[in-house]
């Protein structure tokens, strides 16, 4: 319960706002509000799409082309 627990009116606020204005928003003061900072959400979204696209961009493996041909042939044989 020292005196620095009590913010001096005006003074602390001014320091924070100067610090925020003068530096990049690299380390915002905790505690963070619930939810996620937009830039982090964007970063996660970009990585998720990268994981996904790495697979999606691959050519379709031969086995699936052959499989569909085979399924069609069986269907044709039946009818």
């Amino acid at each position, binding site marked *: 319960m020292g005196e620095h627990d009590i913010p001096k009116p005006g003074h602390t606020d001014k320091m924070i706002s100067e610090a925020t204005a003068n530096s990049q928003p690299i380390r915002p003061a905790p505690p963070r509000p619930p939810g996620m900072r937009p830039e982090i959400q964007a970063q996660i979204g970009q*990585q998720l*799409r*990268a994981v996904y696209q790495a*697979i999606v961009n691959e050519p379709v493996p031969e086995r699936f082309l052959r499989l569909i041909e085979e399924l069609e042939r069986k269907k044709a044989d039946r009818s």
Partner: protein
Amino acid sequence: MTEGATLRAELLAAVPRLRAFAMSLCGRVDQADDLVQETLVKAWSHLDSFQPGTNMAAWLYTILRNEFYSSFRRRRREVADSDGFLAGRLATLPTQDSHVEFQDFRAALFRLGADQREALMLIGASGLSYEEAAKICGCAVGTMKSRVNRGRMKLAELLGLGTETRFGPDARWQAALDPGRVPSAVETR
């Protein structure tokens, strides 16, 4: 047989997305492709239950997911092992800053619960709506939203993004942001 040709083309066109979804469930390339194969066979035998004009990929995702949870997973016990996931593909990633970053992310993704990973892949990666994803997974839209949110938070925590991290490898990330707070031994890594 133009209708058949269209269906065939649509099935084939959906294969890449099915593989990506299967990978997020199985965690392994070989198993994912087996799962996709079973999905295609199943879909083919139930083509009459597909309503033309609706989203075929969503229909196939549903079948794939049912296959995975009803039988596939039981037969193959080693689930969610990220070894082999995307193995050998790292050189073809144009959007990644570094392989390390990508591997860290992939490892973190596979430390999530299956339902969160699935939600992130369906919505965050493949771009389905919450409504579509909820329908595929048989849950409420609110549940899906919550899985996405919790999954994101967990990923951020595992990767040390925007949090005071306790995880070793991520100390480098912290060091880059705030050299004064991290021992120099970590910075030089």
